[in-house]
């Protein structure tokens, strides 16, 4: 992955390497809050927001702490702190943003409110940070990748919840009702996204 391959960072993140349907990250909100489009939209908004923000902040941490050759005048290699620092930083960042939103934008807070703390340590959020670190992306490409990965999750969530709202009204054989038809649907949806492979 070249650092400046923006096609891969944008279209690739949304369609080809979709976080939910190709990488199988963030399955929990994908199944959990996809029963209604309204809740799916709230969760999608929160995910785009948190994934963009955490990509930026973890890229900063990665470049200035984890990759630093020297610290306090001694030679160090702190790469092994990656997961620990990422989780701590993402969780506290979301906490700060939540506190600020509550005061500055009560409307947005009500829309994202309950979803924000739910996903602070979601695997999709940590996954985007780890993928950025693994590819050693710069701060700006990381942020772009985070934003578009979030959009990819949002797309999957909204598509899936729309299908589930339809399923609610169709005559489904009894053994398939509920979660089983949802999982079958998710599989078929993922197969559809495989069709994008090779695009970039």
């Amino acid at each position, binding site marked *: 992955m070249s650092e400046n391959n923006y096609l891969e960072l944008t279209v690739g993140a949304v369609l080809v390497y979709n976080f939910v349907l190709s990488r199988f990250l963030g399955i929990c909100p994908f199944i959990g809050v996809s029963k209604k489009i309204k809740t799916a939209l709230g969760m999608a908004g929160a995910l785009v927001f948190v994934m963009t923000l955490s990509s930026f902040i973890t890229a900063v*941490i990665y470049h200035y*702490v984890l990759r630093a050759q020297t*610290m*306090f005048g*001694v*030679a*160090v*290699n*702190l790469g*092994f*702190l990656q997961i*620990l*620092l990422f989780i*701590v*930083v993402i969780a*506290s*960042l979301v*906490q*700060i943003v939540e*506190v*600020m939103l*509550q*005061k*500055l934008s009560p409307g947005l807070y009500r829309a994202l409110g309950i979803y924000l703390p739910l996903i602070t340590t979601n695997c999709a959020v940590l996954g985007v940070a780890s993928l950025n670190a693994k590819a050693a992306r710069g701060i700006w490409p990381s942020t772009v990748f985070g934003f578009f990965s979030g959009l990819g999750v949002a797309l999957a969530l909204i598509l899936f919840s729309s299908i589930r709202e339809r399923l*609610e*009204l*169709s*005559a489904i054989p009894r053994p398939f009702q509920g979660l089983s038809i949802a999982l079958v649907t998710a599989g078929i949806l993922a197969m559809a996204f495989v069709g994008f492979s090779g695009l970039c």
Partner: protein
Amino acid sequence: MTTFLAAVAVTALIALVLGVVIGVAARIFRVKSDARVELVIELLPGANCGGCGFAGCADFAKALVEGKTTPSRCAVSSQGTVAAIASALGVSAGDGFRQTAVVLCGGDRNQIHNNALYNGVADCVSAALIGGGFKGCEYGCLGMGSCARACPFGAIEIVNNLAIVHAELCVGCGKCVATCPRKLIRLVPAGSKVHVYCSSPRKGAEKRKVCDAGCIGCRKCQKLAPEVFEVAGTLAHVKYDHDHPADPALVEQVGCPTDALLTAEQHLKIEHETPEGRQKK
């Protein structure tokens, strides 16, 4: 050793900075919230049914504290909960009485003749849109379960294409009333046990053609107990009275010829009987 020390130092430093920032942010961006709102939210049932007319329990609690409404508006709370909220806020409970929903149709698959086969979207609103619905009676319950899906308490069950309300689960929030495309669901005082399970204003003979359980307007009930029953045109209703609910024994005494007049318990049992079983002896 240097790596170890550096790791501890870096982690501690980042944690310290984040902690301080969160602390400062919480101080700067503190939202003044009324402690009483939290208290009332604790006391409320948390069903978020919207039966009070507000968007969920938190909104209702806010309105309560601001004095815009009264605790008894909550249909889900028991008398004790309402009293507890009223005393916690130092306001009067307000007048209100418990209600329960009733589906005023007794025509399940065995009683009403269908005039079409419907294979569309399994939803009453969609079914009612196509040619006035597939049931022979255009005032009959379609039995696709729109009300059952709307009920936050699972109090409505669909049996043999007929919605029935389990009164012990119903809290009277009224969500189902809004969903029924045929307006068959009514909120009635919670104590009432006797209902006329028919909503069709058509003539008796027309109803008999399509349904075995429709009210034919024979006035038998009105003659026996005019203070309880009233027949308007060809449809009888119960005059619901919160303080003096009709005596369930009246159903037996009246002996409705079509069994449109039933107690709530009998309505629940319709599905267990065959068409023959429901015929008059």
